[in-house]
């Protein structure tokens, strides 16, 4: 990051964070990781959220009042997370924004719930990040992992004529299992589609040679491999699969979106990722490309993956709900959020109901990587929302 840009960042956010708090200000609290493992995942989405807040403030504020941001570091520690939640609440936060991951964000979200405040996960994709795992005032602005698996299965079936699927699950996280769960839900709904094999591995496995041997032992290569994994193991798995000469299309969740890792697998092709928006400058919506430019201006770097976007979306939908409720009262804001049906945002429509505060159906861009170059090739929305009951079972 160049010094000049760093200054720009300080100027924009510095005013937001350290400016004097006026009695009239609306306080938004970030109980997110500023250090440790989660920092790398929280920061980009948080920056996007700050961009949206800045836009709102420049446009006259929310309910005519300026939004003021307070932060507390969770240090990627669960117990510290709960403390960070309390800290921002003590500073008067009306909205508590918590870590990207459900496990690390939940303690702070639970603190907000106990205080009767609205909480939003920055980009959690588990059904628990919302009513089932926190309570009636909690939301996530991203799209469920299961939708990603379901989207890829249905899209590959329709557009790539895939019939024989292979499923490779990394059992490390709920996110990974969520992708495969969505895939499992979708597969029986696709006529003639069949699962020709299934296997598991662990993200930290030094080698997945035996899993690959199992794929190679199939009488014929599958039409598509559903790979449910995330960083850092994903790169290793993809590299080993391609190195073994398996050329079948690889379907993934959004966790592997981004070009920062592609250098590890030169000339990767036939590789598909669902994304809420494109970071590659070719989003069908020009406003997304404008946002990317703005993000670069403010932070000094391009968005590294689609996980920047949910941060922007959450401030967007929350502020709309506040404007509509004409109040900061948590119940009133939640009621307005739950009225949203296909509410347009820069990164696809959002729907919340009293049953689910997450997206069980969503529009995804399909990003295909060919010869190491990712590009938007299609857009897909699953034909049927995944029923809440099925999601909870998983």
């Amino acid at each position, binding site marked *: 990051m160049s010094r000049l840009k760093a200054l720009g960042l300080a100027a924009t956010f510095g005013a937001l964070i350290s400016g004097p708090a006026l009695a009239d200000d609306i306080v938004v609290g970030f109980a997110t990781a500023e250090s440790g493992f989660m920092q790398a995942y929280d920061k980009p989405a948080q920056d996007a959220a700050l961009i949206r807040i800045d836009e709102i403030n420049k446009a006259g504020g929310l309910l005519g009042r300026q939004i003021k941001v307070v932060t507390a570091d969770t240090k990627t520690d*669960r117990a510290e997370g709960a403390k960070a939640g309390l800290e921002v609440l*003590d500073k008067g936060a009306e909205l508590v924004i918590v870590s990207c991951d459900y496990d690390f964000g939940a303690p702070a979200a639970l603190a907000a719930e106990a205080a009767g405040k609205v909480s939003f996960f920055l980009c959690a994709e588990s059904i628990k990040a919302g009513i089932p795992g926190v309570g009636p005032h909690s939301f996530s602005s991203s799209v469920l992992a299961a939708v990603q698996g379901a989207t890829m299965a249905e899209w590959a079936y329709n557009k790539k004529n895939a019939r024989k699927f292979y499923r490779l699950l990394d059992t490390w996280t*709920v996110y990974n299992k969520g992708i495969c769960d969505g895939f499992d839900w979708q597969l029986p709904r696709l006529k003639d589609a069949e699962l020709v094999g299934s296997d598991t591995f662990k993200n930290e496995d030094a080698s997945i040679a035996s899993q690959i041997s199992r794929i190679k032992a199939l009488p014929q290569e599958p039409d598509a491999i559903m790979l449910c994994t995330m960083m850092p193991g994903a790169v290793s798995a993809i590299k080993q699969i391609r190195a073994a000469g398996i050329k079948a299309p690889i379907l993934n969740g959004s966790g592997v979106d981004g070009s920062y890792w592609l250098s590890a697998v030169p000339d990767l092709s036939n590789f598909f990722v669902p994304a809420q928006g494109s970071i590659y400058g070719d989003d069908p919506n020009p406003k997304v490309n404008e946002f990317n430019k703005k993000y670069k201006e403010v932070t000094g770097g391009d968005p590294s993956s689609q996980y920047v976007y949910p941060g922007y979306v959450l401030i967007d939908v929350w502020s709309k709900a506040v404007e509509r409720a004409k109040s900061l009262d948590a119940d009133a804001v939640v009621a307005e959020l739950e009225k949203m049906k296909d509410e347009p945002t820069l990164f696809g429509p959002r729907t919340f109901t009293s049953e689910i505060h997450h997206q069980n159906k969503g529009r995804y861009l399909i990003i295909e990587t060919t010869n190491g170059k990712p590009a938007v090739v299609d857009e897909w929305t699953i034909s049927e929302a995944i029923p809440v009951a099925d999601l909870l079972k998983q």
Partner: protein
Amino acid sequence: MAQRSSLLARTISTLIILILILVAIAVVTKLLGSRPFERTVVEMFIRVMLVVGIYIFVGNSGVISFGHMGFMCIGAYAAAWFTIPAVMKQVSLPGLPNFLINTQLPIFLSAFLAGLLAALFALIVGRILMRLSGIAASIATFAMLAVINVVYSNWDSVTGGTGSIVGIPFYTGIWTALGGAILVVIIAYLYQISRSGLALRAGRDEATAAAASGVNIVRERLIAFVISAFVIGVAGALYGHFLGVVNPDAFYLGVTFITLSMLVVGGMNSLSGAVMGVIVISGIIQLLRWLEKGVDLGGTTLAIPNGLQEITIGLVMIVILMFRPSGLTRNREITWRFKGATKPSE
């Protein structure tokens, strides 16, 4: 020959001092009135339970265990099974047996049963593992931890897999945690002065000579293993009620190393060492976190960069161990007397 005062009279001062220190910390915290700080102290009291729990086995037997956080895992999940409302369990943990789904116990009964479950598990596994000693025993306990972790991370219908289980009632506040810590310190003290405690410590110093004194080390180790599993199981339950969510990842290597470090830095062969290790390390961590957030010095804010706290605490631990290889308390117990009879020569 002068009549010797009873064992209890000779050693009780350690117990009283440790309890007074814990109570004083709780009272001061309440007076300060900061909610985030109060949570820090609650977490510290739970750590006291964990470290003293490990001490009961490790300190008395001399066998380093990497497996005890497995008991914390068992305890925390048991507390989840016993206290989450039935409606939530039906959905999130459908694999639980019916009687468990339909039970919802009061928190203290649940914590006690959670401890018992951990103790029962320790009894079964310990009958095999306690035959080992030295580094082989350490590795075997680590293998036990790994097995527990793998099972709880993947038995989705009963444990929720790698995902967090939610819906555990919030309960553990500062007085509950203080009560838990005091209770555990008392248990550790009573074990230490018991027949089994003495025999086990003899075995720690000289296993062969202990056997030649009629001590069945395997049995005494098993007793300590089971008691410490109970204590840590209860601590796990309170931790669940403290955080409101449990996740297998929270009971794996990270917490194993931090608790062992606290024990060793404090002095692993004494109860005072276990307690002081937690207090001193927690204190330093808190201090560094305040520094990280920034200290206001006459208008200018002085702050250390994020992440430096972790590096510093690691260095502090190395330095303490360099100068005090047997820990801050030098493996002694704190007593009224300065030149106590319990002073080991060095």
